[in-house]
């Protein structure tokens, strides 16, 4: 499934990386600790997070995530948005909380790295 389908399911707001919406989502993960993301991320993965500092985007770039979904409609600092836009990094925001967002995507058929 593509990132575009993911955005539709979550009724998400596309903050940056519009050009990447047709890319295939390889897997989905969730986490707020940068090191966990660094350890477990796979290329083409989308990570759900409540973490909005520029580190989240930088971590995503280094690990080659397809993008990030910020949950809980969190306020995203301008520095984070700017870094994402500069690098055409997919950044999506949803009103859903972490648990329900994970649930919606899992039900829709997206898989985590452990199945």
């Amino acid at each position: 499934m593509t990132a575009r389908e993911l955005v539709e399911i979550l009724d998400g707001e596309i903050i940056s990386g519009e050009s990447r919406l047709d890319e295939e989502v390889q897997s989905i993960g969730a986490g707020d600790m940068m090191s966990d993301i660094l350890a477990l991320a796979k290329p083409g993965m989308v990570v759900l997070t409540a973490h909005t500092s520029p580190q989240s985007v930088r971590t995503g770039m280094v690990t080659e995530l397809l993008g990030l979904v910020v949950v809980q409609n969190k306020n995203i600092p301008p520095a984070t948005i700017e870094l994402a836009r500069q690098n055409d990094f997919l950044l999506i925001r949803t009103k859903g909380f972490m648990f329900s967002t994970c649930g919606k995507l899992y039900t829709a058929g997206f898989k985590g790295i452990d199945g």
Partner: protein
Amino acid sequence: MAEAKNLQKYVDIFRDLTAADIMTRNPVTLTPDKKVARAKEMMKIKKISGIPIVNSDQFLVGIISIEDIIKALEYGRINETLETVMTRDVVTLHPEENLPAIVDKFSTYKLGRFPVVDGDGRLRGIIAREDILHGILEKFNLIYIHDTKRNTKLDQEFSLITGERLRVDEAEFHYNIDNSDITSAGTGAALLKQFLKKKGIDHEIARRVGIATYEAETNVVIHSCSKGDIYCFLKPDRIIVRVTDSGIGIEDLDKAMTEGFSTASDYVREFGFGAGMGIPNMNRFADKLVILSEKKVGTQVEIVFFLPAVSWNPGNPSP
């Protein structure tokens, strides 16, 4: 036994090591029709204490140990075939079994070695007790020098791993780490990754370099209380990354190596750091890693990534 105690300490850190990583590939084997005397000679020549017995298709059918040979000598059976003397009920390891499972097997069975056998029953290798420590040291080459020698070793011009000369002014990539702004952490690693991709470095290797360097850089920003530097040296067969600072040093490297252990402040945790995965992550993505640290002098991390021609690939035997 001191060795066993040390081993236990590292089992968790190196839990991702599998039997396939540690085992000796292409071990000495014999077929069941050979004489016991032949096994005795081979053990003497090769200085080994056990030989797996395989049939012509490499299926494991038994094992013979020094103990079996001593018994055979005692009962005058040295000229009989291995088939009559070998142990048939062999305890084996699967190539995918991880380090804790391997160590567990050694302590449960009190045997000196385990053949590694795949799902079909074919012999893939053998692990002797000493291979475990050897495997840990060889594959990761993690050295921690905890004495005053480190003082003089820091800021040296030579590679901590290979001993070759590495002049920082000849590094292909350099980045100044600014510890005053936590939101900048990771910038150097991202730039290094871009640089490597431009140089045509394999995508997956550039990604691994990026991740390991990100962790090292973040450690300087959040822990060292000093500025630091990232240097990268490109060699034909490998990439060497050196991250240095002149900060407070690592208090207890054993703890720092433990997943989940962190000394990070709440402020730092707000930025998503302090998961206690920094050094374990570096280790996970590096081919070789050395950390030198001296309290109040600084820390120097050297990470080596092998390029494909000589890259160590668990799926294939090393060239």
